[in-house]
């Protein structure tokens, strides 16, 4: 499926024992390149030397047991960790060569480029229309009401919500069902036309049917966006992603093509986790 994946450690650098990651030269279609990322919450270190490439127009799944640092890593990619006072990030994260932690970089611009969908659906307590229109409004990407209407429609269309809410755009976003709310949040992220969409366990609060719809949506969105998804469910990672990274105790233990990872994991910790021995 994805033949361009560079063999980890192909440049010969020595990885710590058992860590099979993307150190060295980034893969050729990498959208995001993370090198030696260390994250600290105060004195406590949450991530240790994470090296990961995230390929463009692919779904990359971050899996691992609770507290392994996968969400922490995800939140580094659009600097949502800045909100936490005690959080420090070391190392380098680049999106298309642009250093995310460059002090000169405007974090607002970054977050417009790297959208995010959260664990719990969190629509604003406003109308469906305003929920989606908020991003384009504050970024000034639209000039007229007609244009804004179009952005709202197309965002809803892309998130597969348009048919369900077409005739009630002025109802509050919070009146929708959980799955619809989550798709509304995806539409809201899409509305500012990002390149990358980060999803932090987007289905953990949803029932199986709503989950299936979101997964279908992720599959469709892959053509246009680079998607990074944190998930607790290995089945979900296997279903939606092309590449999987396994985190354990703050280390990126193994990263590989999803198929490879689930059929033939190289690290025994990975094997233990995906076969359900712990997690």
């Amino acid at each position, binding site marked *: 499926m994805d033949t361009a994946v560079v063999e980890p450690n192909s440049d010969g650098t020595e990885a710590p024992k058992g860590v099979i990651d993307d150190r060295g030269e980034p893969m050729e279609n990498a959208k995001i390149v993370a090198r030696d990322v260390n994250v600290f919450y105060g004195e406590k270190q949450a991530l240790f030397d994470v090296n990961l490439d995230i390929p463009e127009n692919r779904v990359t799944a971050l899996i691992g047991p609770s507290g392994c640092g996968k969400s922490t890593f995800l939140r580094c990619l*659009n600097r*949502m960790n800045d*909100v936490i*006072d005690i959080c420090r990030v070391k190392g380098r994260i680049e999106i298309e060569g642009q250093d995310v932690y460059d002090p000169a970089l405007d974090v*607002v*611009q*970054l*977050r*417009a480029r790297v*959208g*995010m*969908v*959260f664990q*719990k659906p*969190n*629509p*604003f*307590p406003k109308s469906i229309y305003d929920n989606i229109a*908020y*991003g384009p409004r*504050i*970024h000034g990407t639209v000039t007229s009401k007609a244009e804004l209407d179009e952005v709202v429609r197309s965002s809803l269309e892309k998130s597969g919500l348009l048919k369900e809410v077409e005739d009630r755009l002025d109802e*509050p976003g*919070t009146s929708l069902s959980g799955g619809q709310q989550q798709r509304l*949040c995806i539409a*809201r*992220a899409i*509305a*500012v036309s990002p390149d990358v969409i980060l999803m932090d366990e987007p289905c953990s609060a949803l029932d199986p049917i709503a989950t299936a719809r979101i997964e279908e949506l992720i599959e469709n969105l892959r053509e246009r966006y680079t998607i990074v998804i944190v998930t607790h469910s290995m089945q979900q990672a296997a279903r939606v992603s092309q590449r999987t990274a396994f985190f354990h105790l703050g280390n990126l233990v193994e990263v590989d093509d999803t198929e490879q990872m689930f059929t033939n994991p190289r690290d025994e910790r990975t094997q233990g986790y995906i076969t359900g021995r712990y997690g």
Partner: protein
Amino acid sequence: MTDMSQSESVSGQSKSVADAERTRKVKKRYAAERRFKFYGLLAIALALGALTWLVVSITAQGYTAFVQTKVELNVYFDPQVIDPDGNRDAKILSKANYAALYRKAIRQQFVDVKSRRDRRDLARLVSSGADLELRRMVLSDPSVIGKRVKVWLTASDEVDQFHKGAFTRDLPEAQRQFKDKHIGWYDELVKNGQIEAKFNTTLFTSGTSREPELAGIWGAIVGSFWTMMVTLLISFPIGVSTAVYLQEFAPKNRWTDLIEVNINNLAAVPSIVFGLLGLAVFLNFFGLPRSAPLVGGLVLALMTLPTIIIATRAALSAVPPSIREAALGVGASKQQMVMHHVLPLALPGIMTGTIIGMAQALGETAPLLMIGMVAFIVDIPGGPMSASTVLPVQIFLWSDLPERAFVERTSAAILVLLAFLIVMNFIAVLLRKRFERRW
């Protein structure tokens, strides 16, 4: 636990012992629960009882003040007295001796009262403010001059109190100023239907007075209004911005901790201290006028600030982090996040806190005594710079006056103040209900 393991080791008969033990414990638990509920209900009953007692006793004392006894006299608007030149000049009309008119009217009714002293006492059945009522009549309609008109005039406070039954004729004459001869005249007037209790508009339209029947709380209400305006205009913006900065933007370090502790302490500072501060700073240092609502408002604003800051911070922190993340996630700046999402969602809580703070300030007396708002001010204040007093201070002043009629008026003023406070608290509750959590 040890009993259990022992009883397990034996079995049979001891099993029923364990059962009995368990039943006993369950019963005990239920009893404890019932007792706890009872204590709660008892506390509520006590609180409600105290409140009811308070309201009932004040109402019982004060409701009579909402009516005022009036005397009907057949007044001849004598052109010789009012307007000897006959040119209806407003200046001359307003300077005429109107007291002579009602005195004459009442003496004409009781022609057999001869002695000089009795005639004077007779005229005193009518309030000394009655001349103003006659003047107002003439000024608003000069055509009454030269006519004989039946007019309801405010009775003196002694007549008023006697009519309302504050004291009776059984009271020994030596113990009342309202002598038997007064009672005789009063009976005569009642017989003719010339005495009646009417709604007391004076109470709600005039400033205070030495004469209870002429005293009103309007001056104090207006003074309270200006004071509250100043308080609101100063404490609301400062309080809310402080809270927003501290809660959303300020770094968490030793300085902000110190500031927070101090704000919380400020809320517990005795209010008289704020009064002293106002006296030292606003009056002595800045030279602002004494007794002015501006200064009162400033002092009360200082007092209200901690309340507003604490309430606002609580309301802000109650906005769930998911909303903040959502805003940041689509690329809102921190300021946009606060202004577009957090603040609007926190607003009902902020309003509630502000109203509670204002209600507290409205009832405050002590700090205002220090800055001279305790003066005897008859005029209705025209603005935040004119000398005035406020409702609670007015109540305090009236409660000190010896006239019997001021007792009921004090209670009536308390009722009015309570009504304002209840309305404000009701609005706060309504706001909270109306904008209940929407996520």
